[in-house]
């Protein structure tokens, strides 16, 4: 029993709190334009995202979105256009965590920069879009939420107006984003043409009816639509072949924004892919209609994405680009969650992918925030420039070592666990394709250790190229980095409930 009876729309509170914070920031900006009161602006953003995080965590433990509990259950809003279930809340948590970390870190990073208020409100608006993506349950709301997340992101990447890289990255991101939006919208229209519905469960019902009639008249149209949808998700999650924007945008944009996009935006892209493909296109029925199992597409996408990402990362000399390509590789790992779906289930592997995205929210954000710290210090961009940083900043470099080894999947860190669960999940599916995927996961993880440990080696073992004076210790960046590192480690004892929630959430989505 809840202590207070809340109206149904209150289930969207995590997203609503984010948009409210953005509005508050706008109000602050209109009262005092050109304000550079960083404490107030960053503080508001942090408080808003933490409130969103708190509410989402409260909901998930209170049983919102869990079927079977009295009065709660999966909450459908606006005739099912939006849905709040455990998976939605899980990803709202990821988004809120990353938003909070990025806001804290931006306090120092954006020091002396114009457009302070705009920056934070754009971050919050993008976060709102991502949280809405987590709850979207219809192709229309999905598209709107994606655009809401994307448009502020374009602006954020190019917010360093005097920096050519930032502008170029933003432009590339915008052009490819617009292209993939168009492709996806076209895909949506094809699916609407084939089924006559936009809401995900209605599409599924229509497909079942069609397959029961033995009518596969629009199968080809449907298949093309699904392929175009996959293209849209591949853009949002920076998967091959729509990944070209990612290195440019991550490298050119402000480092906290790179953290934000590569962690939160990617997670949000995945939640949509998870929901669309599990709810709208049941494997058996869709396979019958279009003559091919769509998990095959994700098997190929997963293997290609992780391999391309890792090999490209291994050849980089620029730390930020290395992280950008490695984040493409990690998209490949998360794609296993979709590749491993079967007619009977797949909640283990999908739950594992969700966990990976949660852990990734800490370790990858932390890694990019370290880059932000290095940029704040004015250290260069290549591995050589990072040499010997541990002499001056052991705590931050220790945190960096944690992020790197966790990304590489070395025990006892969080990344090892989520990769292990992905591996076991993939093997337990048992098909040849999934064994191939599992093997690719192991090989790529082993390869990734090479370039991740290279950064650890640079900061800890190599001698510095230039003699540095004492480095400043910006409070916000340090706090965010240390917190992310602590969470990467502390997730370890706390993995029990995370596993339960993720697998439970995945099975609910799969069953619907």
């Amino acid at each position, binding site marked *: 029993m809840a202590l207070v009876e809340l109206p149904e729309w209150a289930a969207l509170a995590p997203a609503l709190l984010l948009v409210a914070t953005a509005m508050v920031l706008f109000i602050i900006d209109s009262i005092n334009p050109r304000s550079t009161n960083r404490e107030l602006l960053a503080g508001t953003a942090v408080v808003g995202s933490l409130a969103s995080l708190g509410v989402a965590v409260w909901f998930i433990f209170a049983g919102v979105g869990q079927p079977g509990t009295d009065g709660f259950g999966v909450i459908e809003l606006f005739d099912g256009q939006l849905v709040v279930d455990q998976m939605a809340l899980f990803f709202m948590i990821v988004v809120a965590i990353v938003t909070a970390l990025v806001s804290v870190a931006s306090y120092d990073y954006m020091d002396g920069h114009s457009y302070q208020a705009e920056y934070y409100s754009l971050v919050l608006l993008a976060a709102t879009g991502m949280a809405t993506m987590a709850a979207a349950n219809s192709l229309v709301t999905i598209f709107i939420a994606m655009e809401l997340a994307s448009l502020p992101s374009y602006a954020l990447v190019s917010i360093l107006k005097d920096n050519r890289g930032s502008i170029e990255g933003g432009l590339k991101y915008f052009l490819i984003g617009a292209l993939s939006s168009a492709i996806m919208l076209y895909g949506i229209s094809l699916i609407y043409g084939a089924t006559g519905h936009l809401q995900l469960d209605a599409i599924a019902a229509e497909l079942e009816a069609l397959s029961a009639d033995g009518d596969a008249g629009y199968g080809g149209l449907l298949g093309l639509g699904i392929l175009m949808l996959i293209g849209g998700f591949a853009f949002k999650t920076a998967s091959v072949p729509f990944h070209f924007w990612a290195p440019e945008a991550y490298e050119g944009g402000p480092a906290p924004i790179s953290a934000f996009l590569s962690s939160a935006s990617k997670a949000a892209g995945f939640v949509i892919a998870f929901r669309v493909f599990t709810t709208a296109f049941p494997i058996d029925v869709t396979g019958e209609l279009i003559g091919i199992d769509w998990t095959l597409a994700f098997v190929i996408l997963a293997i290609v994405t992780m391999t391309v990402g890792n090999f490209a990362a291994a050849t980089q000399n620029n730390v930020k680009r290395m992280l950008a390509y490695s984040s493409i590789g990690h998209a490949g790992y998360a794609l296993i969650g979709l590749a491993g779906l079967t007619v009977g289930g797949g909640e283990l592997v999908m739950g*594992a992918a969700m966990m990976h995205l949660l852990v990734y929210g800490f370790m990858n954000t932390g890694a990019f925030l370290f880059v932000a710290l290095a940029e704040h210090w004015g250290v260069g961009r290549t591995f050589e420039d990072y040499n010997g940083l541990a002499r001056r900043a052991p705590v931050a470099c220790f945190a960096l070592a944690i992020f790197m080894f966790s990304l590489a999947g070395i025990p006892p860190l969080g990344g090892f666990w989520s990769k292990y669960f992905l591996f076991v999940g993939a093997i337990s599916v048992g098909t040849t394709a999934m064994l191939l995927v599992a093997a690719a996961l192991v090989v790529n993880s082993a390869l990734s250790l090479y370039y991740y440990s290279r950064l650890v080696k640079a900061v800890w073992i190599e001698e510095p190229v230039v003699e540095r004076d004492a480095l400043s210790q910006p409070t916000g960046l340090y706090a965010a980095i240390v917190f992310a590192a602590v969470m990467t480690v502390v997730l370890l004892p706390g993995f029990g409930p995370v596993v339960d929630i993720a697998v439970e959430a995945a099975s609910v989505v799969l069953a619907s």
Partner: protein
Amino acid sequence: MMIEMLIAVALIGAAVVFVAPNRVAGKLAFAISLVPAALSLWMFTAFDGSGNALLDGELAFENQVEWIQFGDYAISWFVGLDGISLPLVVLTTLLTTLAIMSSWTPIDERESQFYGLVLFIEANLIGVFAALDFFVWFIFWEAVLIPMYLLIGIWGGPRRKYAAIKFFVYTNVASLVMFGAFIALVFGLGDAVTSFALPEVADAMLEGGPDGFLGVDGPTLASLVFVAMFLGFAVKVPVVPFHTWLPDAHVEAPTPASVLLAGVLLKMGTYALLRFNFTMFPEQVAAYAVPIAAVAVISVIYGAMLALAQTDLKRIVAYSSVSSMGYVILGLIAYTQFGVGGATFQMVSHGLISGLMFMAVGVIYNATHTRMVTDMSGMADRMPVAVGILIAGAFGYMGLPLMSGFAAEYFIFFGAFGSELLAYAPVFTALAMFGIVIVAGYLLFALQRAVFGPYSLETDYEVSRAPLHDVAPMFVLLGLIIALGVAPELIFEMITDAVDPILANGGDL
């Protein structure tokens, strides 16, 4: 909760020391490390376990808490000690304290980071010996790598980067092979296991073994897993031909890291062999007895011959570890009470003796700035105490009676000679015993050149006696070596008590 206390004190201590100022880090780390040392000694006296941890034994300080349930398998926080693991835990805590004390002189930069990492290693080593769930164990097992990599890479000698990478790559690849093998085994066991608790896996293995996995049938899977795990652990031990990382790592590592590396890290390999291969796979042990014994004997002889050819004092001690660990493998494969018990005893004994030797070499190096036997002569005149200890340690290595090395090697040879499992056991034993002769040969040869004769080192600085805090830890070790040599039953009884159930399982082979 005692084991958790040990680990927690070391971990929290590591964090505290890491952020402490360099000036006080050494003393602070020493003070903190006294707590686990004292606690583990108290645990040693209060030990009330019996039998083998994996085979329905009574565990001491046991604790099991549910942790993660993923799919069909549960992972739990499961720790406990039996007669095999307790001596190794005590060895770990004592050696850490002594190693910290012995680093006060040689470590003169980034002290807080150094001592923080040492305490971090200690926590993980205790975890390796105490963990009874595969995942808990594996986490501690792997977590040792990162700090050791940094210790060698940052504070090591001139070729430290090469040595650190080589150490990391070798041992990490080995761990992955072993990890994959074990996971395949658990999956292959099917419904017989529902968790990664080692006692449960051991039970299932002895009850009937795996059904098969991914088209590989049960017996083949068991053999493959046995071989893969053996290879994985063999790198850590290390046995020939997987030993090449060891001399590099040892020679480049700073003294305290060498002490921990030889004293405890190598024991992780043989301890894991005993826990996994030799406890869970009695049939495969019998089937592969001859090749394993051959590897053991080759390690003994070849390691000793390599040591004979070295002129670097530290390298001599490093290669002699290959040789000593070969004895451990021989004792294990004998599969008798004295063999396996002696092997476990040798793990402790070698930990003490090699720790002592590395410390002595380190002290001499601090004073002379060279480790080359050819450069030194007559060191006994300038550093009588340190050299005396070096000689005593060498005698321990050679197996002088009343020192722990003698007891360990005697048990092993006695056990191996009468082995029923191993074909041609007397031949293997005799060959391995020849190793003692070579050991005595290279140690006496080295000592004769470096220690005796007239003093000849040409330096522009004073070579003088070592300070007390360098010598004191060596005296403690020497005392322990003699104590275990005079009264091996101090730990041998609890060891055999834990070893007997293993042999009972293999009794009908």
